């Protein structure tokens, strides 16, 4: 079953003469439990695609289905509930730098309205799962970049979302920490969470244990190892032809 399905998605920023297409007719499908790697140079539209899945942006055309629910025209009041089912981590971590790791993770559980004891227990477990000390009282700003990204991953997973989006999660990390975070994402996937990792970094392309590789260029999907995009589009236009490519070992 596909946990994520995009069909003919088009999206532009700006309006009038400043209008610029960020995604053009993108169709793809990611199976439940997959480790999907979204490649493409800077400005290809990777972040835009992830923002669409989080309903931070709206597509102009096309449908986006997350866990079989069309979110392209989701009501504003329903967006928080979508985001509880879609974890996300970013290059800049987006943590409360003066709070401890546990306080950061707890925030994602408090929004669910869970009682304090529950929040605490689950925050500890989420931190232990990413191999961090749940009891540290040091604020997040005193941690290394790799540790901060682990806190972010723990927070994203604390609510047990169906899918984890990672937008350049290693962009601020050195090669050693990059490999550690990729390993962690691999084990997250093995524990059952679908992972969609977007990056332009060749090091990541090389080391990520991806089961599904997609490539974007100039807002168009130019490669898809599952080759499902072609089947989804009834009558593909010649310029949107998608080449199936191999999965790196």
């Amino acid at each position, binding site marked *: 079953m596909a946990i994520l399905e995009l069909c003919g998605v088009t999206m532009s920023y700006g309006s009038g003469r400043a209008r610029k297409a960020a995604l053009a007719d993108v169709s793809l499908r990611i199976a439940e439990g997959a480790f999907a790697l979204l490649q493409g140079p800077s400005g290809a539209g990777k972040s835009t695609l992830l923002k669409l899945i*989080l*309903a*931070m942006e709206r597509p102009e055309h096309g449908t986006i289905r997350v866990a079989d629910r069309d979110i392209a025209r989701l009501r*504003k*009041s329903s*967006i*928080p*509930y*979508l*985001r*509880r089912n879609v974890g*996300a981590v970013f290059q800049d971590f*987006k*943590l*409360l730098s003066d709070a401890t790791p546990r306080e950061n993770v707890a*925030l*994602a559980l*408090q*929004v*669910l*309205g*869970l*009682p*304090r004891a529950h929040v605490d227990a689950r925050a500890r477990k989420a931190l232990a799962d990413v191999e961090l000390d749940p009891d540290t009282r040091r604020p997040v700003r005193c941690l290394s970049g790799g540790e901060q990204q682990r806190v972010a991953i723990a*927070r*994203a997973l604390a*609510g047990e979302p169906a899918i984890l989006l990672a937008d350049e999660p290693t962009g601020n990390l050195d090669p050693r920490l990059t490999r550690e975070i990729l390993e962690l994402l691999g084990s997250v996937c093995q524990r059952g969470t679908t992972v969609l990792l977007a990056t332009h970094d060749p090091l990541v392309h090389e080391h990520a244990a991806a089961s599904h590789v997609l490539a974007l260029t100039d807002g168009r999907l130019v490669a898809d190892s599952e080759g499902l995009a072609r089947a989804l589009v009834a009558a593909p236009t010649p310029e949107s032809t998608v080449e199936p490519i191999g999965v790196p070992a």
Partner: protein
Amino acid sequence: MNRALTSLVYIIARGVRGMVQAPLVQVLAMATIAVCMLLLGTVVLVWQNAQSIADRWGVDVPITVYLVDEVEPAAASELASRLATVAGVSSSETIAPELALQRLVEGLGDDPGLLDGVDADVLPTSIEVRLADSSASDDAAVLAAQLRSEPIVEEVVVAGAWAERAEQLLATLRQVAIGAAALVGFACLTIVWSTIRLAVYARRAEIQILRLVGGTAAFVRGPFVVEGLVQGALGATLAVALLWLGFAEVGSLVADAFALAFAAGSLRFLSPPECIVLVGFGAALGVLGSRAAVARYVEA
């Protein structure tokens, strides 16, 4: 505990934490709101007291007709009912000496003993004439002139100019009170709006994170609304307290200086329901101001 209640607890806790992090801002906002509300409270207090004094002084009785001592009750009521049919008169009422004495006793309030042993018969029978609102101001004078020629009439007192001025003063005070409420409302909204704007700016990272992890608009907005509500309600409470202190100080001085005006009773402070309305007004302004300040930032 259900989830909504648990969420409310988190919202209040985060609101309080936010306030504790910027205590000076809270104190300044509350003090400024208190000063504004104090102004409003003072105007309302003056208006209320002027109103009750005017009521006691019978400002609403423009013409009082005193009858001769030996008048027959039947003649008095005959004149009263004749007056009631005159165009421009809305009502006329005979006040027997006993009723006049009773009013005097009540009017003395704390010190009714002054009139012990006074016989009602020393007081004249009178007729109170009220005019329709539509009547012209010189109608009263014309009517008074006619009444003076009646044989059983001893004297006619037209409250006329004084009553009119008192009515005008009351109307003006009421308008000032309404104007003050509008101005103070606007000022308090602005104060809360700008303090909450600062708080939103200081905590913009937290807001972004809460939205990212699936916090509802109410969850994101809540702590700021708590902050606005507390500022408004505490500011107004402080104003009521200051007003009460000021009233205790100034009230007795004023009462001494105008002993005659207050002979019919003492100055009164705002009633408990009026105080609650004032505090509720402050709280509502706090909620409105904070909601407006945070509105744009809670949306996805």
